[in-house]
């Protein structure tokens, strides 16, 4: 077992110019992708993959976590200024944030949003840190049998990101699994589905596949719509530091609401499949229920901004736990983060937790620090950064497309991999247009090879008896519970397409 010290990791992060520099790049990028309506965290991770490819694994992982941590900090901006949420989880902020902006309190709303986002992110990260000692003994008990069943459990979470259509999700997840089998078979080296093509021997590269399925369809949609960005309006006035100060004060006044919403958000983040929408709306409802004047909600109550914003950022801390320690992504964003980690040579799961405890702590502190940096950065440049919300998304299209192509060619020396990217891009575009969920594809592609490899290892060591190990029995019960829950749940959970 690795005895990494959380304090040592924190000091190492603070004293590393490289890691701090990476975070200073990642945070504005995360704010940017969050603030432009229609773009979001999943897209941000997909197009970050080429960028982090050449980095050291730790620096790359810090970039991804820091970028993902602040997406919702930026996502509040268009919600408050335009009434258009940056992404699904930011929708709850619109309900009270936009009326505040309309009555000339945009600065106050953004100040409250930034402060509660920072507080939520910090509390979520600290809760994650507190849970590490609880999770550690479980991680230590993991061998190939448990890894296989854990991967299977992860595959059942395809249902969690099904966007309400389980059958389509299972088909897309199976397609991801099937493509994970392309290349040399791990046990005896047989080349599968390579059709004599050398470039397929290493399998379908995640750097080509993930941006193709997630970033290209967004760009095709954006380029096809030809929509111009919204014109800056009067709501951008009053965005200076002093106007935001009132919002900071609101969060201090409602500090217990901020704390409760943050804890609730982190706990919801821990549960696979509940997702950001649930966290923000549950906390919005909690704020309204516990308010002495619930009738103000929907008409510009600042608590209606504070609670969902705190929850949005804190849930990322909770969601990181199953992703990092067990390699089980509980949300569509985490599925992509998992895929991005794999491109860095890091395989989240028990092996990573045991062998790279320093990295785990570094990522937890990066999550905390990114939230603080993001909010300070926006508070300092709020007036100008507020204009991000008015950016015409389709102007980004050619830049992103070139970046995706560059990433594909960075991962593979073979130009033919561009054909794979085009085919998967077409498939992803069709899926997006027809409302098929795409995150299951990433889960299948990432977990397929782990499932197969660990199954063969477990079978070679214990034969069929591996299913009778105590850890395996617990995981089998969890798998059965997961399938039962998703098969018989009465209502669809929010979409994660």
């Amino acid at each position, binding site marked *: 077992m690795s005895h990494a010290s959380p304090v040592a990791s924190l000091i190492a992060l603070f004293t590393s110019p490289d890691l701090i520099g990476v975070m200073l790049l990642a945070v504005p990028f995360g704010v940017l992708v969050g603030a432009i309506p*229609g773009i979001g965290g999943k897209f941000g991770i997909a197009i970050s993959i080429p*960028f982090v490819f*050449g980095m050291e694994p730790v620096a790359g992982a810090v970039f991804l976590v820091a970028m993902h941590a602040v997406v919702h900090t930026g996502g509040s901006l268009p919600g408050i200024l335009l009434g258009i949420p940056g992404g699904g989880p930011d929708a709850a902020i619109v309900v009270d944030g936009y009326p505040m902006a309309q009555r000339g309190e945009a600065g106050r709303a953004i100040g409250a949003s930034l402060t509660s986002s920072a507080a939520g992110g910090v509390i979520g990260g600290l809760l994650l840190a507190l849970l590490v000692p609880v999770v550690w003994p479980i991680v230590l008990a993991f061998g190939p049998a448990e890894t296989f069943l854990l991967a299977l459990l992860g595959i059942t979470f395809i249902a969690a990101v099904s*966007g309400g*259509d389980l*059958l*389509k999700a*299972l*088909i897309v997840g*199976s*397609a991801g*699994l*099937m493509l994970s*089998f392309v290349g040399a*078979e791990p*046990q*005896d080296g*047989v080349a*599968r*589905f390579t059709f004599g093509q050398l470039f397929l021997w290493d399998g379908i590269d995640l750097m080509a596949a993930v941006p193709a399925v997630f970033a290209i369809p*967004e*760009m*095709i*949609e*954006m*380029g*096809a*719509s*030809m929509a111009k960005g919204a014109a800056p309006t009067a709501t951008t006035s009053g965005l200076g530091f002093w106007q935001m100060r009132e919002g900071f004060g609101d969060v201090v006044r409602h500090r217990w609401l901020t704390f409760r919403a943050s804890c609730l958000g982190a706990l919801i983040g821990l549960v696979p499949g509940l997702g950001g929408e649930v966290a923000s709306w549950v906390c919005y409802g909690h704020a309204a229920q516990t308010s002495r004047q619930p009738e103000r909600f929907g008409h510009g109550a600042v608590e209606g901004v504070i609670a969902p914003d705190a929850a949005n950022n804190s849930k990322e801390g909770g969601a990181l736990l199953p992703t990092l320690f067990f390699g089980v992504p509980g949300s569509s964003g985490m599925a992509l983060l998992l895929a991005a980690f794999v491109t860095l040579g890091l395989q989240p799961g028990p092996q990573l937790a045991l062998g790279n405890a320093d990295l785990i702590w570094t990522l937890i502190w990066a999550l905390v620090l990114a939230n603080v940096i993001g909010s300070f950065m926006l508070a300092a440049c709020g007036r100008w950064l507020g204009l991000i919300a008015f950016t015409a998304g*389709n*102007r980004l299209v*050619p*830049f992103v*497309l*070139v*970046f995706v*192509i*560059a990433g594909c*060619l*960075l991962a593979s020396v073979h*130009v033919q991999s*561009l054909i794979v*990217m*085009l085919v998967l*891009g*077409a*498939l992803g*575009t*069709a*899926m*997006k*247009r*027809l*409302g098929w969920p795409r995150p299951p594809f990433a889960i299948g592609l990432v977990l*397929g090879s782990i*499932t*197969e490899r660990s199954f*063969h290892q477990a079978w070679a060591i214990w034969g069929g008896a591996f299913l009778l190990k105590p850890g395996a029995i617990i995981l089998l019960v969890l798998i059965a519970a997961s399938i039962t829950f998703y098969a018989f749940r009465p209502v669809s959970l929010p*979409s994660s*397409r």
Partner: protein
Amino acid sequence: MPSDPSASPVRADAWLSAIFFAGFAAMTIVATTYPAIARAMPMLVGTLGMVLSAIQFVRTVSGRRDAAPREKTARASAHLLMFGWLIAAVALVALLGILVGGALFVVLFLRARLREAWSSAIPSGLVLSAALHLMLERGLGVRLFEGLIWQ
């Protein structure tokens, strides 16, 4: 930008199910030629995929009809046009490399698709090349693809 599944054209949805079915079927058939260990998982997943996509196909075909085909055809054309732009980007980068081909694509797209002025489009292309060169080649020491023409 979430899609509206309720607006999915039935025929296109069925086509997608059929494409998935064909893909699973082809890979399952190919997998039968591999040794036992290598074929176990692909055959299991492939068979499952075939069954699921067949069910989805039947479910879609027996479902409701498309409500507003003309509007959707227009949207599909816009998507096809954009996919043409993507193919153009891939071709330019493959031939001229990331720095030259990428910059040229940005200039052409901004000028032809978004009707931006040359004075805005050309600097945008140059900025992209400079950013990629500085970030990836200088910053991270990554060698960028130089294009088939120059190789």
